């Protein structure tokens, strides 16, 4: 597409990009290295990369046991999975209705969706908090999950995708005897797998990493998600035992980063795709 760089340009490209890469990677490298070091080697004020005594096992053991880190990870997985499943269950049929069914009020409905797209989640935090307080849902899995069951962005994205599905396909299904629900789950869902995957990546990344909402609604340690867990870990030991702390941070980012490294292209495409629409 573009002309290849000359030899000088090629070298320069690598020099600049490598320098940038070093900056981007530095926190990760430092985090992992520190997580291998014993406290004594961390507290010396001199620049040393590799530990002289490896304390990886201790640090990770401490990270896993001082706070129930495994529980936090499971909570994170449960909450993100529940959110995504609910998002599909709630928003996919709605997107289908908006894209493919003719009914009175559709225009208004879609206008409401577009309007809601403009509302950042932080804005509705206080009222939802009060609502959950009133119905006694605060500090529960439901509080972590329910507000995200509705994703206007998901509706919007899926609707855009469904618009590109030929009407013939839906008509064929009707003639073949599928009801509207059957069409949504048996035809539209499998057809939309690429779009749903992209949205799923977006959703999982967003909610695994979310800190704001869990911080507000969750008080009990048993319900902590990984970000809350690692923040709690830091508070818990006055933020001075850096080895275990870095181990905890590594543990928290590991699932997503590992998934990303395995399915890099898919993740980047998913985030780009949703990013361009978001």
């Amino acid at each position, binding site marked *: 597409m*573009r002309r290849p760089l000359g030899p000088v340009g090629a070298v320069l490209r690598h020099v600049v990009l490598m320098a940038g890469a070093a900056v981007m990677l530095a926190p990760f490298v430092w*985090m992992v290295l520190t997580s291998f070091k014993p406290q004594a080697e961390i*507290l010396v*004020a*001199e620049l040393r990369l590799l530990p002289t005594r490896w304390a990886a096992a201790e640090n990770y053991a401490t990270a896993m046991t001082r706070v129930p880190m495994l529980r936090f990870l499971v909570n994170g997985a449960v909450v993100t999975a529940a959110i995504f499943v609910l998002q599909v269950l*709630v928003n996919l049929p709605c997107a289908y209705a908006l894209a493919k069914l003719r009914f009175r009020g559709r225009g208004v409905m879609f206008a409401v969706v577009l309007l809601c797209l403009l509302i950042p989640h932080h804005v509705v*935090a206080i009222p939802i908090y009060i609502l959950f307080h009133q119905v006694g849902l605060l500090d529960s899995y439901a509080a972590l999950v329910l507000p995200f069951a509705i994703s206007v962005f998901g509706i919007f994205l899926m609707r855009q995708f469904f618009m590109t599905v030929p009407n013939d396909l839906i008509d064929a299904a009707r003639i073949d005897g599928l009801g509207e629900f059957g069409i949504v789950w048996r035809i539209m869902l499998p057809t939309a797998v690429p779009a749903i995957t992209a949205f799923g990546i977006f959703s999982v990344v967003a909610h695994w990493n979310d800190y704001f909402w869990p911080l507000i609604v969750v008080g009990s340690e048993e319900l902590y998600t990984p970000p809350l867990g690692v923040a709690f870990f830091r508070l818990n030991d006055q933020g001075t035992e850096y080895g275990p702390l870095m181990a905890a941070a590594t543990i*928290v980012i590991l699932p997503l980063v590992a998934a990303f490294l395995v399915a890099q292209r898919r993740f980047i495409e998913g985030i780009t795709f949703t990013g361009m629409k978001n």
Partner: protein
Amino acid sequence: MADALALPAPAAMRRRGFGEAMAALSLAGPAMALMVLFLVGPLVVVVLLSATDYQLGARSLSYVGLANYAEMFADRVFRKSLENTLIYVAIVVPASVALGLGAALLIEAGTSLRAFYRAVYFLPVMATLIAMAIVWEFMLHPTLGLINLALREIGVEGYNWLQDRRTALFTLCGIGVWQSVGFNMVLFMAGLTAIPGELYEAAAVDGARTGLDRFRTVTWPMLGPVTLFVVVITAIRSFQVFDTVQVMTKGGPNRATEVLLYTMYSEGFSFFRTGYAAAVTVVFLVFVLALSLLKTWVLNRRVHYA
């Protein structure tokens, strides 16, 4: 027979129409109900709350009109918060957009190590920000941190980055840039791949010889709309800065890193001044709404939908 058949079956047909509306309603109904419950309703409530003196957990509330807003604009903390947020956006947006564009262009300019660079620059987007904030906090530690240690190696005296009111906000900006460069980069890459190769060939035929020529005649004009879009969404994301502040500085030292969402959080959930926090939220909403409308407008110009 023909006449008998010519009569439509109105009741039956209405039933069928009703059926389709029912189907649409049952398909869209749950989403619509949740939308009202979790988005539209709360939006209205937050605006109403901002005109009350409601305190979380209090048994009553009363209407105070614009008193919260008056208090807010008289409040040093709020003004500082607004100012800091704007500074944060004003730094993070241009820096991360420019660096994202630069990274995208440089990475796409060659073929070797392309996937590696892309993955590395994108990594911070995926990594849990709160965990990375803790790592950054450690790296920024005045005596034990990597940054000051590295600076000392080259003979520069570091700062107490997060405790010093002169550096704290800029330090957070730096982390913000670090976190969003990769996101902007992939958006630009998507924009770059959308530029048809023929345009470069046409530009070459028309005499664009240097890389700069090609950038000025083809790449930049074609990326223009993408850039505008990236600028706007980065601005929206930057307005929502919270995690780093909450975990690293708590808005300090002396409110030097107080930002809107943190103000809203601490007023609403630390001081329990819900009405006041709602007013802060409304201000936050106004900014993000304006940006979102701008984004919708950009999107509308670029791709046709609805």
